[in-house]
């Protein structure tokens, strides 16, 4: 399946991926200014830039084949779509027990800062059907959305 991969050698640490991810998953997915300025709580990005310069890279859910979060989820909210492979959290079912955080070896599940106590994670922007916004908005091609072998 296609996933987002970070090419850390080109991550400029600008965190535009975080900004755009937050917007895309906010109440105003098409209006960045409203998303940040109108929404009471700052939207939570589902991608996290790990950074200790000069090293930085964006990290989001790896949508593991063997997704431990889906196995550990006590509520059945965390599911891997058997067709697309995308792991999503059904926030309406999530109870915020953070077992997914406990088992996610990538630390890629966030506690939503938006006030409701649910786990928040990358959904590969599956609802928009196209390129994840983090990839779209990376100014330096440091994020790629691919399922092809990548030479290093």
């Amino acid at each position, binding site marked *: 399946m296609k996933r987002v991969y970070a090419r850390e050698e080109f*991550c400029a*640490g*600008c965190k*535009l991926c975080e900004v755009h991810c937050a917007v895309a998953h906010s109440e105003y997915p098409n209006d960045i*200014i409203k998303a940040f300025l109108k929404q009471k709580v700052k939207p939570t990005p589902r991608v996290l830039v790990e950074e200790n310069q*000069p090293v930085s890279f964006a990290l989001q859910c790896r949508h593991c084949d063997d997704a431990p979060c889906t196995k550990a989820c006590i509520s059945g909210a965390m599911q891997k779509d058997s067709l697309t492979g995308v792991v999503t959290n059904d926030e309406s079912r999530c109870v915020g027990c953070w077992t997914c955080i406990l088992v996610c070896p990538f630390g890629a599940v966030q506690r939503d800062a938006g006030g409701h106590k649910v786990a928040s994670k990358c959904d590969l922007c599956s609802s928009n059907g196209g390129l994840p916004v983090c990839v779209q908005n990376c*100014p330096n091609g440091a994020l790629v959305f691919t399922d092809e072998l990548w030479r290093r």
Partner: protein
Amino acid sequence: MTLSLSTPDFLIERNRDRCINCQVCVRQCANEAHIWDEEEQRVKSDDALCVDCQRCVTLCPTHALTIRKYPLEFRENANWSANAIKAIYKQAESGGILLTGMGNDQPYPIFWDHLLLNASQVTNPSIDPLREPMELKTFLGRKPEKLMVQDGKLVEEMPPQLELEVPIMFSAMSYGSISLNAIKSLAAAAEKTGIMYNTGEGGLHKDLYKYGKNTIVQVASGRFGVHPQYLEAGAAIEIKIGQGAKPGIGGHLPGEKVGLEVSQTRMIPEGTDAISPAPHHDIYSIEDLRQLIYSLKEATQYRKPVGVKIAAVHNIAAIASGIARAGADIIAIDGFRGGTGAAPLRTRDNVGLPIELALAAVDSRLREEGIRNQVSLVIGGSIRNSADIVKAIALGADAVYIGTAALISLGCHLCQKCNTGKCNWGIATQNPLLVKRLNPEIGAERAANLISAWEHEIKELLGGMGINAIESLRGNRLMLRGIGLSDRELSILGVMSAGE
């Protein structure tokens, strides 16, 4: 600590209605002109630190930023410009030589903009380059006086040549003055487009050996990273005597830019200054240049063209003639608008010649002396677009070097702060944090796109003139007319006035 009299050059305007405090600007400004105020929970700016590189403006996701010229107005004085005053403040504070980057930015005449190109009408047809052949292939190197053919075969091989698909090359920029990613971008773009890039004097990084057939390796006074394998690695060797931005001046890569990789490439210890003396200390006279040219030819057994790069200076025609006679296969002349990683301001802005005049003078002289075929002529020093190139070739150049234009294609915004090592675009820096901002794949694509775009434009212009091979433009000054030039300038350029 006394009061500094220096004032900001730029003003950062932040539209608070648009600013979402995402701090992208804070993270992207190596000059720390944007600051996150933890207490206020918002971004603020320090104008004094802004260099107007436009990185923040470009990356701001809400377009909340505008950089303006700082509205400080000294009392009006036609003689004492603000820059003149500010320079004195800086020097009074530091006692230092004013150091800057990029090329001469002073309002000297730009002769390209006083030259007009011809087009075919009625008496001969223009050519449609989209559907008909249009040839730009260019060979650089010494051509034999005449050919000897026997039994349908060449009696003697042509001396080694550089073969270019387009008469454009990326000019010398060393690893050290620009980042490895910038060089990788240019090297890959050169490979893609069938042209050359030039190592500059910083040696050849191990990752770049694979671009050998598109590489010109440079030998400069510091001889950094010069060894037999290096000389063998490229398609040609260039002796750097001077560059347009700082004729007569050496180079100095400060130790802080000599990190591990630069150190390995230049073969000097990490953290030490890389000082390039002003002259080659084995060249104090023209016959010494011959000695060096032939030492390089001898070392590479006459398999590679050896070029010589010089800055355009007053006696350029004679110097070029001498270089041709010293055995150079290619002469590269860099006009006074050529860029640099660092140059003393006064040198950059006051020394040298416009490349247009230098080119015309050299081409004319070499033709008068009958030695134009012995040597190829490459010019650089602020080629800004394909029309400049067409004019250059019509004036007599074989090919052009582009440096600043290439860097602009990679994202350079000409803030002229290359010397600080804080290039926010990852070009003129060795700071790994900044270097990685330039993804060489993107860079290569952009630089290659530029070459392709110009290639198309050159073909369009040639087609308009009814010419379908670049050879027919070379030195074809009848395709040029001058406008707004004095008779003397027209005569040096060897072109007629518009209307003639």
